[in-house]
């Protein structure tokens, strides 16, 4: 049996089936969570490309599978990525039980995880860009409210992502030419420009970042967080794939500089724009922009000097805390949003003043998630953020200080959020208004953030091995 059937086609088929069964939302969600956890466990345990026994059966998981004329290759080195994707999706599906998202969330989540796996597996890897576009279509469907006009943010998201796709494909075509004639400098410049422009659009690099805060303001917080978590990670993996595939690309100092400039722009945009926001959803959007920026800075360091390969490992270890942070943050927003039902202004500061007295658990978890995202000690984001800042300091002090400034901006808005939540016009006593399912999920998420922050050694090593996806970068 081919591994692609297990981790790509099976979940894809299941997503279609669950679409028809969405009437029984809770049962379908629970079954899907069990299946995705099972797939993650299988990816962890099953030796790809080798024989393994299940009871009396002996199965060989073949690494390669031909599909529509393309190869889908899943090897043992992909196992950490598969574990990450399926556990991540299981986590997000778990949260959807209380997040009151659309019923198609389960099907869409499963399809997205299958497609993300396909994007990692497809050869030639350039086709990953097409698969990512498919993911974008699914996400837009998920973000749109049935019976309502599509929100401007979602429309802009679709436009900019679709605009980016031809640039990537065209760059791929040019890069194939560069491989055969490396001395063709004109083609190299053309290919680099195409790639840069394509990724600027896909990764929402300033000034193409606007769809992120717009989306975060308009759409359901939990769905937005899901999209903003998985999509940038996949696009960054695609970008690193380019660097891994083409040695001339990672050896050019200009490429490294360009990535770092983009990173600095994102960090500054994310951190400093966030300071002036009054909407908790938009702040989440700018936090994602900040995180994309820092990831770019780390990737830029890898291409400049091979000695900084550890920066990539650290970047990958950030994926787990980031997922938890965004999940807990958005779930808290869902709870607070329920409190504001009927208020057209939504999650603006003036509407949530003093909300902590009625929703202490949601408010506490919101602040924990925000603090973790800025790298506050004791919380999940701290170990990786600190190492990233120190790593960046070794590469360039200026970049490290800029990155810190971005985070200080985000810290400032976190403290503002905290002040708004605890200071209200009426001085009522504390009361817990969240229901039990909300309390248990939020508490679980908040506790997870604290535990990872104190004991990262139990949670993060697996993710650091995701660097094995890019064997050439370490050489």
């Amino acid at each position, binding site marked *: 049996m081919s591994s692609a059937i297990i981790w790509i086609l099976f979940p894809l088929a299941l997503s279609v089936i669950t679409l028809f069964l969405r009437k029984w939302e809770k049962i379908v969600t629970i079954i899907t969570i069990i299946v995705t956890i099972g797939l993650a466990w299988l990816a962890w345990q099953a030796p790809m490309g080798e024989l393994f026994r299940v009871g009396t059966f002996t199965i060989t998981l073949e690494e390669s599978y031909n599909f529509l004329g393309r190869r889908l290759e899943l090897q043992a080195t992909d196992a950490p990525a598969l574990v990450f994707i399926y556990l991540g999706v299981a986590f997000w599906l778990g949260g959807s039980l209380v997040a009151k998202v659309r019923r198609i969330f389960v099907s869409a989540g499963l399809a997205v995880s299958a497609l993300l796996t396909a994007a990692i597996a497809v050869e030639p890897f350039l086709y990953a860009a097409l698969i990512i576009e498919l993911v974008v279509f699914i996400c837009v469907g998920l973000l749109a409210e049935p019976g309502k006009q599509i929100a401007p943010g979602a429309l802009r998201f679709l436009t900019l992502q679709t605009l980016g796709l031809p640039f990537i494909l065209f760059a791929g075509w040019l890069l194939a030419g560069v491989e055969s004639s490396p001395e063709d400098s004109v083609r190299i410049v053309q290919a680099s420009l195409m790639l840069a422009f394509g990724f600027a659009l896909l990764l929402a690099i300033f000034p*193409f970042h606007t769809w992120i*805060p717009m989306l975060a303001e308009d759409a359901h917080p939990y769905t937005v967080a899901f999209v903003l978590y998985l999509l940038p990670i996949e696009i960054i993996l695609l970008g690193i794939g380019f660097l891994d595939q083409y040695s001339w690309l990672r050896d050019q100092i200009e490429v490294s500089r360009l990535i770092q400039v983009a990173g600095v722009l994102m960090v500054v945009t994310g951190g400093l724009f966030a300071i*002036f926001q009054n909407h908790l959803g938009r702040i989440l959007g700018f936090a994602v922009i900040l995180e994309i920026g820092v990831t770019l800075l780390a990737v830029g360091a890898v291409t400049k000097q091979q000695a900084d390969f550890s920066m990539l490992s650290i970047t990958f270890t950030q994926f787990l805390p980031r997922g938890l942070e965004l999940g807990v943050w958005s779930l808290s927003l869902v709870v607070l949003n329920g409190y504001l039902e009927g208020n057209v202004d939504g999650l603006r500061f003036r509407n949530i003043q003093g909300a902590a007295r009625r929703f202490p658990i949601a408010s506490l978890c919101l602040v924990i998630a925000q603090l973790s995202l800025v790298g506050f000690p004791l919380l999940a984001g701290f170990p990786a953020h600190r190492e990233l800042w120190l790593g960046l300091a*070794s590469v360039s002090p200026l970049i490290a200080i800029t990155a810190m400034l971005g985070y200080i901006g985000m810290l400032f808005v976190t403290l503002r959020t905290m002040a708004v939540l605890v200071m209200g016009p009426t001085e009522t006593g504390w009361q817990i208004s969240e229901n039990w399912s909300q309390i248990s999920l939020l508490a679980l998420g908040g506790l997870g953030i604290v535990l990872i922050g104190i004991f990262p050694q139990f949670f993060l090593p697996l993710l*650091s091995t995701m660097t094995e996806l890019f064997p050439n970068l370490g050489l």
Partner: protein
Amino acid sequence: MLAAVAFNGCPELMTNTFLLISFISMVAAAITMVLVRIIRPKFGYSWLLAASGAITAWLSLLPVGRNLPSKLNLIVWEPTELFSAPIVFMADQVSWSYGLALAGLVLGVIFTDVLRAVEADWSAWAGSLMLGALGLTAVFADNPVTLMLAWAAIDAAELMILLWHIPQSSIREKVIVSFSSRVGGIFLLILAEIVARTGGNRLDFATIQGPVGNFLVLACALRLGVIPLHIPFLQEPPIRRSLGTTIRLVPVASSLVLLTRTASAATATSGNYILLVLSVFAALFGSISWALAKDELDGRPYWIISVVSIALFSALRGDGTASLAWGIASILTGGLLFISSARHRYLFPLTALGLLGILPVPLTPGWAGIKLYAPPYSVWLGAIVVTQSLLIIGYIRHLAQPGEGLVGVERWVWVIYPAGLIIILAGYGVITWWGLTEGVLLTGLYLIPNIVAGILCIGFCGIWVYIYRRGFSIPDRMVELIRKVFSLGWLYRFLWEVFQTLRRLVNTLTFVLEGQGGILWALVLLLLLLALLQQG
């Protein structure tokens, strides 16, 4: 002796074991109290539980002082090639002194609470124990990561306790401002690490170097509220003496330990000089306000500001011993007065003994403090002499004020309550002889200047008493004006205006980029950016 036999002549193992016991006993007592209250809400032995945890911690820390220094590896973050920082405790003279002071303070608070049955309850004791344990983690931290974790835990615990107890929004705002400045201190510590790394070094408390030292001092100053000078909130939490004292003093101790360590890296730079001047102003302002405060609890924030400013001043001049002496005085001398709610002629000498922490008397901790009066001389040293005299006068004034009586209390209270004060004094004694050994002796290169400074200090005290007796006082309007200037409200209002202007600018840009023609505007902006980068 018994312990030495039990550890088979391995002093480091013994030290580490006692260190762990001190921390665990406090945490365990606090957690047990919470659990017991959940299972049996009417449990009547909470105080006993709290007292046993605190006594164990204090007693365990005593033998640690005999085998210094010692290191204890707690947790290693893996993979080690990515996460370079293990969580390590280190007991040396500085950390042990602060540790014993903290443990003594917590024990003193719990013991003296027997007189304040109305004010203190099990939650206050559990809070004090937990804060004490976190304080121990901070003072024994061997590296920046351990310290950052401890600071963060202390700040989070303090924030939760205060928000829980304070219902007024206006005071909550001040709690958040105070928390913000503490968090700012944590990020300055991270910045210090970054600065060290840019020079190819790893930040290590044992070898702090020039520019990094400045960042560390700034981090401490920010956390202590000295620079920029800020008195967090004058309205104290409802539990004023008991948990209130722990809440005020534990974060102070956790920052002072780093301050004392940075004294070794003090260099004469312009940045340092500015810090020095600011610390003198903070010390003077704090001491004047302390001397004029209504009572010791109202004056508590000013006491802290003033004494830690002198500790900062000492550290900036490179005098670690003086910095340690003032740091310990802020906790123990101050703590002793803050927990002494009862006034009785038999108890008066006990509380008065706390003055030895700030009085320039040889063979006392106060003598280690005046070691800072050494060359190079400047006008700022004179200001510190005045500050010290005001602190002494303020202490005596608050001590002499009437308080709760001890009439009608049960006999056992008569034993336990003074025991709480004696424990603090005993701990102070042990710290003086084991931690401040060099400083308290009547020796040293600058003995004469020290004696002169001591005499001057006493002289100033006499002048203040004379002025006070003649009925002179600073007009209220003047005091208010000084407070307004030093509270930096005017600066914060200015910054708020700048913030509003920038917000309008960003909102305009956002409006353009997120509007209907946003994508076109983005393309224009991109071209502009590219043109700019090409020129660069």
